[in-house]
């Protein structure tokens, strides 16, 4: 019954978001149903499109999983975008300098990504716990610093031989690429997807089945009570930052070693910020993150088809994602308000 009561406003909101999307398409004079079916076709229409969707799903899963951890600790980790970038930079460094076969380099890039992301997140963490800088502003600032470092590396020390251009570094040597699995005539991003799903599973287990996760949740919900219960709250906050940052950093590794195969200035692909939307829509639940991330990434990948086939801007996907999250939040709030109204009127003598 409660599940149903929760589901109804969500479904109504989703429907309203869809209506909004259709109206928007009508406004720009696009055929709405063709456009929506292109979204599906563009993301799942062929083996190569499914592969591309899965490849995009992986970093989003990783970043979202990291955010579930930091949100559980009550933190607004807007620095996630920078953590993805620093992970990508660290992984690029390993890919560029570490010699040897793939089974050495690839794990090395993953580890480096995790460390890069964790360090960047811990910086925001220490700024919060020891510097009095709220994680929203610290994280936001560090996002831009990370983006600046990436740009600097691409056009400066790591520039392509002879040319300084923002199009990226040299392509990494093949051994540093995340291996693909060939089937149906296309390469499948098996390693990235496994990393992504493993991160969600890890977070789910941590929060559901471990003392660490329970304490984290306790700190996130009421840090003063938690302190009185004897939990070292700052240590747990920093732990959440480190873990969330590490997962975001691995998302960065995936971006450089499985997708671009080089470092580019906009390496994060916006997956950090998109992951915040995913986790908001998932209501901070690890279990819901995987399907919602897949849904969102399908919209993102599919919307590139709108550009190719209908001449529409691919940002339509982002609009749809934003409207869905906004409407679902509003739907929930309206439902909660109605519930409290009817409660208070019942209490009236």
């Amino acid at each position, binding site marked *: 019954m409660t599940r149903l009561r929760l589901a109804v406003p969500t479904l109504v909101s989703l429907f309203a978001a869809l209506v909004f999307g259709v109206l*928007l398409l009508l406004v720009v004079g696009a055929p709405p149903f063709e456009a929506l079916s292109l979204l599906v076709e563009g993301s799942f229409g062929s083996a190569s499109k499914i592969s591309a969707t899965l490849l995009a799903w992986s970093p989003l899963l990783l970043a979202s999983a990291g955010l579930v951890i930091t949100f559980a600790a009550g933190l607004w980790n807007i620095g996630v975008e920078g953590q993805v970038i620093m992970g990508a930079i660290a992984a690029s460094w390993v890919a560029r300098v570490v010699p040897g076969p793939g089974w050495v380099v690839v794990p090395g890039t993953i580890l480096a990504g995790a460390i890069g992301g964790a360090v960047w997140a811990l910086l925001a963490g220490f*700024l919060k716990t020891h510097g009095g800088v709220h994680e929203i502003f610290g994280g936001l*600032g560090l996002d831009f610093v990370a983006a600046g470092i990436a*740009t600097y590396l691409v056009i400066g020390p790591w520039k392509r031989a002879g040319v300084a251009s923002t199009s990226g570094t040299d392509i990494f040597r093949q051994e540093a690429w995340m291996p693909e699995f060939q089937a149906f005539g296309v390469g499948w991003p098996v390693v990235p997807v496994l990393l992504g799903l493993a991160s969600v599973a890890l977070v789910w287990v941590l929060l559901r089945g471990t003392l660490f996760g329970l304490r984290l949740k306790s700190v996130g919900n009421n840090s003063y009570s938690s302190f009185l219960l004897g939990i070292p709250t700052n240590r747990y906050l920093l732990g959440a930052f480190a873990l969330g940052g590490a997962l975001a950093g691995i998302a960065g590794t995936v971006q450089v070693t499985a997708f671009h195969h080089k470092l580019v200035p906009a390496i994060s692909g916006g997956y950090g910020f998109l992951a915040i939307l995913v986790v908001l829509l998932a209501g901070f639940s690890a279990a819901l993150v995987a399907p919602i991330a897949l849904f969102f990434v399908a919209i993102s990948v599919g919307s590139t088809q709108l550009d190719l086939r209908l001449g529409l801007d691919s*940002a339509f996907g982002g*609009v749809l994602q934003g409207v869905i999250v*906004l409407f679902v939040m509003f739907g929930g709030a309206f439902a909660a308000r109605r519930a409290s109204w009817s409660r208070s009127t019942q209490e009236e003598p």
Partner: protein
Amino acid sequence: MVPIDPRGALIVEATFNSIIAAAAPLIIASMGETITEKSGVINLSLEGSIRLSAMTAFAVAFWVGNALAGFAVAAIVGALIAAIIAYSSIGLKLNQIAVGFVLTLLAIDLASFLGDSFVGERGPRVPPLPIPFLSDIPFIGKVLFDHNLVVYASYVAIGATWWFFYRTKPGLTLQGIGERPEAAFARGIAVNELRFWYTVLGGAMVGIAGAAYSLDVKLGWRETLTLNLGWIALAMVIFGGWHPLRVAFGAYLFGALQVLAFQLQDVFPGVSQVLPIAPFPLMILALVFVYSPWFRQLGSKFPRMRNLLGSEAPAAIGTVFERE
């Protein structure tokens, strides 16, 4: 920072002139956000608001053939987004950071999507309007008074915000509702109504800043037009310690960095890409500085120094006020 040149004086003049012009939209936006945050609400959506309003301003001005119409609609767009944040926070008790963040991404993409067909078009622009006599003053005249209405509006925004905060009763009340809403309420002030309207006012100013970009500074619409202006404005408000004059100082400093980066890009390639991030470390350092025990000691010994160098956020910023 200025190359040695026989025409040095002219170049200095032109450089300062362009710093003033470059900072104008940033100033309007950060004054708007300062007003909003002083009242206790954080409008995080600035980056999205600015882009969407820049786009709609251009579109409207392009259709109507009148830049002023573009500014008017941009103000409405910025105000509407702000109204959504204010309502969802005050009325629906949603987290204003969450709503602001979602609206940021949504408005950015909406601007790209709806503005797609305007990319590359040429529209009306704000005409230059040197102020008679004043612009003839040597140096100062060229630097300060040989601009257009947008730049003059940025002066007015600084002066009016400062005057409003520190020289009017409603301005004092505005600060009160952001500092201690329960105390303001006890004095008979309608805290939530005021917060709503100040958020809307701030949003309208942010919208005007967006229009300034597409109709003045950059002329035309493309996605990367505003170069993180919204995020920078958020950083500037913090860097400036919620004080209009210090915020304006930060914005001019940033304008100077931008102009400098532009002039240095031939000498140090890459500097133009990296310098624009400067506001963000500055913002963080400003926050750490204000929090540091050193600053607190200084502040308790020399209150005047404290007021000059930095100040803390309005105590109730980002919180929801509910009467018991």
